[in-house]
């Protein structure tokens, strides 16, 4: 009896929390004609025409470019964050370097409204000609990803036995060699987790994409909103829905495949950070 109630509560919670996704998915399968008569939650004649329409490139809209931009900036923002964080995490965990200064400062970054840095970064990017470039947006996304990557990696290295380093030190290895040959391989799961988590975060970022890009480097989160500014005669809801589904799919798939690791690191980032 109580179990039936549990299932009921689960069903209600699952539908309520996923409601916008469900509605968008359903709408994306409706033809333009059906949309004007049927705003309900079922589809009379499912069609993929909206998805074909989304992938039509026009002067104004180019979904391939937005997706390519998102992939590139997410890749830069993720790998750079890990490349910077891994040696620093090793220095913090083993060298006790900046444990009370650098680490808390970076962890606190996660909690600071990033808009604070957005305006001077905009001006700086103007001087450096980084506005509306994938490199520029990728660099900023690596700052967004740094706090969690650092926390995950510091925790992973702290969990390793100190004998691992000491044995290598005895053999005359330098700290850099130990990091590359001993620590990094053992920390591969943590590195993969921070990469995946970073990719999802970077893909989903909106504020910096909105501020720092205008046409050439627009990521999908910003590009999707272009589909809402319709060219005359109202929003084409079917096409707009299809673009949102396409834009949401990569992080959702990654998240579903890796959700165990992600839930673990979310908790780590929250509790230990």
């Amino acid at each position, binding site marked *: 009896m109580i179990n039936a109630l*549990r299932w009921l*509560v*689960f069903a209600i*919670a*699952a539908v*309520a*929390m*996923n409601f*916008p996704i469900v509605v*968008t998915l359903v709408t994306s399968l409706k033809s333009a004609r059906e949309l004007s008569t049927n*705003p309900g939650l079922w589809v009379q004649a499912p069609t993929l025409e909206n998805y074909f329409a989304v992938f039509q490139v026009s002067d104004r809209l180019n979904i391939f470019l937005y997706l390519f931009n998102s992939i590139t900036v997410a890749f830069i923002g993720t790998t750079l964050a890990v*490349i*910077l964080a891994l*040696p*620093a995490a*090793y*220095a*913090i965990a083993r*060298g*006790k370097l900046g444990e009370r200064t*650098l680490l808390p400062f*970076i962890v*606190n970054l996660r*909690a*600071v*409204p990033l*808009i*604070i*840095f*957005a*305006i*001077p970064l905009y001006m700086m990017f103007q001087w450096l000609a980084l506005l509306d470039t994938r490199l520029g947006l990728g660099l*900023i996304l*690596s*700052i967004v990803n740094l706090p969690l990557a650092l926390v995950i990696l510091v925790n992973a290295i702290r969990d390793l036995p100190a004998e691992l380093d000491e044995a290598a030190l005895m053999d005359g290895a330098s700290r*850099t060699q130990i*990091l590359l040959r001993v620590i990094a391989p053992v920390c591969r799961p943590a590195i993969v987790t921070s990469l995946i988590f970073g990719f999802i975060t970077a*893909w*989903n*970022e*909106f*504020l910096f994409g909105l*501020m720092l890009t205008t046409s050439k480097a627009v990521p999908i*989160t*910003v590009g999707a909103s272009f589909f809402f500014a319709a060219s005359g005669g109202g929003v084409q*809801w079917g096409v*707009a*829905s299809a673009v*949102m589904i396409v*834009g*949401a799919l990569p*992080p*959702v798939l990654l998240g579903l495949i890796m*959700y*165990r690791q992600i*839930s673990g690191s*979310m*908790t780590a980032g*929250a*509790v230990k950070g």
Partner: protein
Amino acid sequence: MNTQRAPSSEFRLLATPLVIFLLVFLGFPAIVNLIYSISDVSFETLRRPKITGLSNFVAVWNDSAFWQATWFSLRFGALTALLECGLGLILAIFLSPLIEKRSWLMAILMLPLMVAPALVGLMYRLVLHEFAGPVPYYLWAWFGASLSFLGPTSAFWTLIVVETLQWTPFALLLFYMAYRAIPTEVVEASAMDGARRWSLLWYIELPLMAPTIAVALLIRFIDGFRVFDNVYVLTGSGPGGSTASLSIYIYEAFFKQGAIGKAVAASVILFVVSFAVLYGLNVIASRRKGVLK
């Protein structure tokens, strides 16, 4: 191992790239912020700001829109944090027997966390649209009611619901992990002592989860306080600036009004306040850890 030992120079070298990166991309902007905040500056005089003192701060201080945005951010952060954590706690404990056996249920509940808040905001433009959206459609068909979800009176609450529904899974996940981490011996021992389900929950389980609850409340408050994406795409600053968060206030001051000085001064205020609060919290947290040890 002696932890007081001075860090070797090689460790310093390993941390250097990160430090340089932070100095360039955060340190430099922070300095620019400080200089511009006390200058008379426009898009034409970006390279030759004229230092004028605190007039930008005075302008922000006297701007009622700034205080309206502060009040919005505080209320939005507090309400969504409480709702998300309350709902998340109830769901985590009530659903844990189901999720324990089938972890894919958690994957379904976590799905909203993977979607960009900006996209979720855009999705709600569809969900709530008066002609194309299913919610107004069913409200009208079943109850004969028509509500303006994004109108002046209800926009705030619509945004609260949107934010809460997307981020309750985060609290749920955290609480579920904390709940599962309670040692079974503790629960069994109290059950042997005749503790009932409710008193077990109230006196044993919830106190054990308290640190996690505090952390979740804090994180969700911060994220609600600095909200931008979903509010921006759904209502923007809203009728009369009624749904402008501080992030949106700064964005619009800069990009829409070109009021660089005001935008930067507001950034500096936000910067100082958030770091002061976070630093204070860190001090409290480390003191409590010290007491516990």
